[in-house]
């Protein structure tokens, strides 16, 4: 079978290359916000993403829409107190893994309002 230069092949190859290029550029530039765990917070200023396991007690302020709880490393002991205002997703519970954005201020993590997210729990994985 004679191998002729087929323009379609060239176009296809170029498109794939272009797509790959967009991929790599995007993920290296904007790709994902670093999500830290409590043990990695020390000394970080500015807004970061914090992930961890919710540890009680969970306090609801009497008169404001404010939640106070502690986040622990997913696989460790380090903890940090968190102060959060805004919507609390359904699946929030002591023992669940959550992700929240905010800043570390004087040893307390002050969360950006409405940034609390619980991972869709794997209802199949054993409760760790």
């Amino acid at each position, binding site marked *: 079978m004679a191998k002729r230069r087929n323009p379609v092949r060239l*176009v296809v190859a170029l498109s794939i290359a272009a797509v790959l290029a967009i*991929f790599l550029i995007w993920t290296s530039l904007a790709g994902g*916000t670093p999500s830290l765990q409590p043990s990695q917070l020390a000394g970080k200023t500015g807004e970061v993403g914090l992930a961890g396991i919710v540890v009680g007690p969970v306090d609801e302020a009497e008169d404001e*829409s404010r939640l106070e709880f502690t986040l622990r490393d997913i696989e460790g002991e380090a903890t940090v107190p968190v102060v959060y205002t*805004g919507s609390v997703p*359904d699946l929030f519970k002591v023992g669940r893994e959550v992700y929240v954005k905010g800043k570390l201020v004087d040893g307390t993590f002050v969360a950006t309002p409405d940034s609390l997210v619980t991972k869709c729990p794997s209802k199949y*994985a054993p409760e760790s």
Partner: protein
Amino acid sequence: MPELGRAALVAAFGLILYAVVVGSYAAWRGRRRLLDSATNALFAAFAAVGVASLVLLAALARNDFSLDYVARLTSRELPNGYTLAAFWSGQEGSLLLWLFVLTGAASAAVALNRRLVREVLPWTVPIIGGVALFFAFLLVVVASPFDTQAAPADGAGMNPSLQNPYMIAHPPMLYLGYVGLTVPFAFAMAALASRRVDERWIVVTRRWTLAAWTFLGFGVLLGAKWAYEEVGWGGWYAWDPVENAALMPWLVATAFLHSVMVQEKKDMLRVWNVILVAGAFALSLFGTFLTRSGVISSIHSFTQSSIGPFFLGFIAVVAAFSIALIITRLPQLRSKTRMESLVSREAAFLYNNLFLVALALTILWGVIYPLVSEAVRGVAVSVGAPYYDFFAIVFGLPLVLLMGIGPVVAWRRASLRSLARQLAWPTGVALAVGVLLLAGGAGSSPAGLIGYTLGAFVLTTIVLEFVRGTRARKSIGTGGWWPAFSGLVARNRRRYGGYVVHASIVLLLVGAVGIGGFSSSREVRLDRGEAAEVGDYRVVYTGSSEQRGANAQEVRAHLEVFRDGERVGTMEAGKNSYFAEEQTSNEVGIRTDWLRGEDLFVIADRFFADGSVQLDVIVNPLVNLIWLAGLVFVLGAAVAMWPDAREQRRLAQRFAGEGALARA
């Protein structure tokens, strides 16, 4: 009773193992009786799995807490419907459902194509058996639903978020989809194994593929509706890995569905098709793996789940097997026909494949990247909606454009002139719509505006297709408009059913852009009697109340709704605190305006001791078009799938000679 269940699973495992081993030998050596025996083993395995399933259902119905599974997932207070649905709400039970549907589908597919499998595609039995073997292995060795314990007084109850009709229907729909994809995969690989490159495997599995794809797509939408109502953050799709897990195989299956048409009509894209079907199947396994293994939370918790590593291993085996088969058959597979022009229907299908696969790969990368980053750099990242939204637009909009151009461009080589003539009207309508929307303020979301313009373009081409087709039929027939129309659709079910499905995608687009690009919201704290205003709505908080429900303490804020000054109704939003599960869930208030398709969406964030309430009031325009799209989608797919007696006769005649010739 659990012993019967366990025994049934062990029996199933043995039977499937037999089917795989003996089936492989029979296919390799060409032994008819051995193959028949292996096939029977597959049928018997289905019966055995059925017995195991009945045992589990019975245990659930009786609240038999001596079964660890029942105790973990149900409680005495749980309503009956949900108790039975607990069959698939946990790991082990869902694996059992998988196996049940798989052995059922395998038996049906083989039984319906008995002669074909026997004479031509013997490897179908061991291959599909191989997949079943994996699940049977998991159920017997690693994750049995029949583990027993000392029965506690009451069970732990079902996760409150799962106590919702959509969440009940969602897993079975997805499994029907995933398992359904196993059938074309098995037939395709069997065809390759027997060194056959004709389209027969495509033809016999066409409706399986279409059905599986429909279930999968509908399942994704059910999940989205659940997320919208239950998780209630105001949105409908969060690009969460578990959502993407089902979307990826659906996208690749979409590509496959379209691409096989080119093989049927032009005998091209053969290599693409086997890669796509294997890819769709592998992604459905991967999706199942993602939602079960805990790998999403952290790559380190991955090994804590017992079945994660097994799944990954199995996916690797499937991938290696498929790749090996495809590569060794590549010379035969390669089409002899060359694509002549970049502007042709063949090319349009090729672009379709490329964009869909690109989108699926992008999503895959978004899901894997955090894990890769953590494993390689030790830095966990989270990939958010902006990444996915960007690529959904970059790849999605061209796909919408293709939906409009594809049906109209000619095969082999399209003349730009006739293309321009065909697309004159759609382009005109699209531009008019675009200008109108721009004037109406839709410019606030440029991507949305483009999306709507393209949507109008596609809808116009679809309407024109129906009109032109009906007119053409009427001109050669003797009947009126309706017989011409119904005859047109009846004679070309795939094409016109497909057009309806395309229309549903446009509806989905319109709805998604509406809620994504043009929604508005406000957060307020209201005392009794105070109001909040969002869009054309005014919401007045009239007070709150509490009551004890079946399994939860329910507190609700009562609201009166005014639109454009007129009172239009009341609604409630609040929280449920579940007793057994010790968890609180948001019960959002949704008021749907059917005429406008928009939702007034209220989340009660917080109830304060002084009687005031913190509310999040959102207006989601056009969101109900998304759900309507789901219904239209199923309708279109049903039309496309509808059995066609004429077509069946033609195909039967084509294949009647086979086998008989062999024996002559």
